[in-house]
């Protein structure tokens, strides 16, 4: 009994260390900012490596201890943040197969990326900024991966989103990265509304945001849906929308190639490996909710397969390696989502882990692709053959052309979102703004300027410009 208690306490300590190290790293960066101290590249690199390695060692120890002691699940409560008779806000982490797998993957890849980035970004003017955002991202990922309440997940989710967007805009002296960053932010914020509403609904239906109240107290993947009435399906739909936004599923896929504006290490870790799988992770966490409603599972399968097909087509015509890899990544994410819809949880998790590692490697090799290609040619003594799939040749020429156009335009998703959503909303608010200005001018008894076209906003131009 005493040993068991010690192990549980040790697990709690290690779990807190996993989260605590990124927090400490961020606090150090904050302190240097407030004290106006500039850290050298070496110091930053050492701090990051120490923090990530300690987190990784803690995660490995957790996994070993749990396997050794046969512990399937270990909750870590940080206490009740807010308790009122009407509202209960709790931050809680959980160590189980799913969370530990994902957090181990995160820390492993982050360690690799930290090492890679110290050389890749050497003497880059935004070296320090990159690692601050890296630390925010790491904290967000670890928080989301270990979360056992929807609030904890939401906190991590938002941190990941912000870090991603600011890294897309990393090379901010050019106009294109901030434009693309803003575009991705718009899609993230839109989909985060769904997660926020899901959190509210969970609170109102279950009285708390704990996932236990939603999917039972059993350890993953033996969760069972807890029937809570008609709200259950609504919750499922909201979670699927949130996941679709984060994982760039249809119809939100257009942000993924834009995200490639950032430095290669961030593209590798965020959009190739970790961030893009966060939606998958969410669906795995709440998979009993999908299982309880066959129609919802069917929607998830269709969404996953449609995204995979779309990404396959779009990826076939990309002319730069990072975009091609991004769409290849999305193809696999779509298939993983479909696996979740079919109820293959372990398969989906293994697929996720394998895919993330492979894609990180491919992204990190992307800057040396030409070099690799030459080496390959030298090795085989000839140019590699261009792959043409047999079914593509069997299609009639007009269909081939249409498909080509469709793929080249990335499914017209940008144009559709712009015409159907962004432009009407902006036009409406621009009209209101003109009325506001006329009213103010009338009150001030000044001459109204002649009607002019609305100003060219950064948002509109962001919609129009391709990455």
């Amino acid at each position, binding site marked *: 009994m005493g040993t068991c208690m010690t192990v549980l306490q040790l697990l709690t300590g290690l779990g807190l260390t996993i989260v605590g190290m990124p927090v400490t790293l961020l606090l150090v960066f*904050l302190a240097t900012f407030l004290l106006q101290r500039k850290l050298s590249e070496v110091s930053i690199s050492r701090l990051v490596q120490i923090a990530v390695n300690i987190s990784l060692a803690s995660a490995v120890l957790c996994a070993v201890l749990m396997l050794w002691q046969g512990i399937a699940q270990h909750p870590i409560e940080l206490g*009740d943040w807010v308790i*009122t008779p009407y509202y209960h806000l709790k931050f809680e982490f959980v160590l189980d197969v799913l969370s530990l797998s994902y957090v181990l993957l995160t820390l492993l890849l982050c360690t690799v990326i930290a090492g890679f980035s110290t050389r890749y970004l050497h003497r880059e003017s935004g070296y320090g900024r990159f690692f601050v955002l890296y630390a925010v991202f790491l904290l967000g990922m670890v928080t989301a991966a270990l979360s056992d309440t929807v609030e904890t997940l939401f906190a991590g989710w938002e941190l990941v989103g912000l870090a991603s967007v600011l890294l897309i805009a990393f090379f901010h002296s050019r106009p294109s990265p901030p434009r693309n960053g803003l575009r991705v932010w718009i899609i993230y914020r839109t989909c985060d509304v769904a997660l926020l509403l899901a959190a509210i609904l969970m609170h109102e239906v279950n009285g708390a945001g704990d996932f236990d109240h939603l999917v039972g107290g059993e350890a993953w993947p033996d969760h069972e849906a807890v029937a809570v009435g008609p709200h259950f399906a609504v919750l499922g739909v909201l979670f699927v929308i949130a996941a679709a936004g984060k994982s760039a599923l249809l119809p939100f896929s257009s942000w993924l190639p834009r995200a490639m504006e950032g430095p290669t290490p961030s593209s590798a870790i965020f959009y190739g490996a970790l961030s893009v799988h966060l939606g998958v992770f969410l669906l795995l966490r709440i998979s009993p909710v999908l299982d309880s409603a066959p129609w919802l599972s069917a929607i998830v399968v269709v969404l996953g397969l449609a995204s995979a097909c779309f990404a396959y087509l779009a990826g076939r015509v990309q002319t730069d390696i990072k975009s091609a890899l991004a769409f290849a990544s999305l193809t696999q994410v779509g298939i993983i989502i479909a696996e979740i819809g079919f109820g293959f949880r372990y398969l989906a998790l293994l697929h996720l882990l394998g895919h993330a590692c492979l894609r990180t490697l491919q992204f990190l090799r992307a800057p040396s692709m030409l070099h690799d290609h030459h080496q390959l040619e030298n090795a085989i003594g000839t140019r590699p053959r261009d792959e043409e799939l047999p079914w593509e040749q069997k299609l009639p020429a007009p269909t081939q052309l249409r498909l080509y156009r469709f793929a080249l335009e990335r499914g017209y998703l940008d144009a559709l979102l712009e015409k159907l959503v962004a432009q009407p909303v902006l036009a409406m608010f621009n009209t209101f703004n003109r009325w506001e200005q006329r009213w103010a001018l009338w009150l001030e008894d000044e001459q109204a300027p002649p009607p002019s076209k609305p100003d060219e906003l950064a948002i509109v131009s962001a919609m129009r410009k391709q990455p």
Partner: protein
Amino acid sequence: MMPSFLLTSLLALPFAGVLGCLLLHEAWSLRISLGTLALFLFGSVAAMLWLPVAAVDVASMFVLDTLAAPLLPVFALVHLLSHLGTAKTVTSTGYCIRSLLAAGLSALALCCHDEYVLLALLVLTVMLPLWELRERGRSSRTFVVYMSVFCLLLGASLLSGLAERTPLGVGLLLLALMVRGGVFPAHSWMPVLFTSATYGTSLLFVLPLMEILVIVRVLITTIPAWMLDIAGVLCLVSAVYCAGLALVQTQVSRFFAFLCLSQTSLVMFAVMLHTANGVTAALCLWMSAALGLTGLAFSIRALESRFGAMSLSEYHGHYEQVPGLAVLFLITGLACVGFPGTVGFVPMELLFSGSYEKGLWVSGTLALAAMLNGIAILRAYFSLFTGKRQQTSISLSVTGRERAGIVLITLMVFGAAWLTPSVVDSRHRTAEELLGLQPTLHSAR
């Protein structure tokens, strides 16, 4: 006797500062006003921590109760930061006096338990922006029109039996407060004010949110629920509408004004929920919005004092010159929209949760407003701080005063997030007391 004396001294401190500014040479005005406001902040924190609950001043008109005690340091901080962020070139004696008067009047209003005095103080605060507009030779017509409507409605309310709490009396008072608070459709004065007056004066007029003070002190237990419901819908519309307008602005001052309107509308909406959860959210959001918006205004003012008025339709690329301001802009902007880890997170969560009692569509609308605000803030950030790097022949890095402000705001935005559990707990008890669910406001802080 001692607590009464201390409270009276604290409330009189800003007015003593005004006297100092008037009596001493103009060169001393800035130092006197800064010193007074710093002392006022220190005194407010000390009063919150050490003065007994419900300390009464010597005239027995002003009480430091559980509502006022934590808000007083927030108000003091807002005034101090506003003053710290003002460029020396525009801090005339008049400006210093107005800042001190604003601090004094808002502190008096916060502690005031006499509704007529409270309403009189509310009217008096209107004079400060008007004074500045006249002093700067700017047109004050829009402001005067709206504030005249506010005063007329206030007068009509008093004549219609506010004392007896007749439905007409309380309804007219609510209308008056909505005009002063800039709730849709009576919001147009605020962008004009922010464009014509200095950020400091405009902010100190808007951010103390005196309207909410009157609602919770005077109206909330006596006004018919249907009136609050209608007002709540208007606040909700205002929050989304102004967030949308913030998104399409090309002038920084108008962007900030609409963002401010959207945020204050959210606080007012929370009060209009007239539930313990809603009022708790309002009391927490009141503090976090004040801090967040003050910080945002601080960075904008510091930026405009260097580069002049800026447009949001191009990329200015100021990050490399003033990275501190860029970071401040981002963190305070995100705190305004309730980003995790900042002071705004828990209040926004409370608001969303409280709003569900009115239906999921209400929560959805609030989430829409938060989404639009978040997009507007990042758009403004990218516009101001990214783009081609500007070359200047002189250093434009932040000054010592600005550095102090940045440190103070950053610590509050992140530090206050960790203090939230105890703060929320006390705000919840206060909310119950205000709603009459607990007998008195004189419980432990």
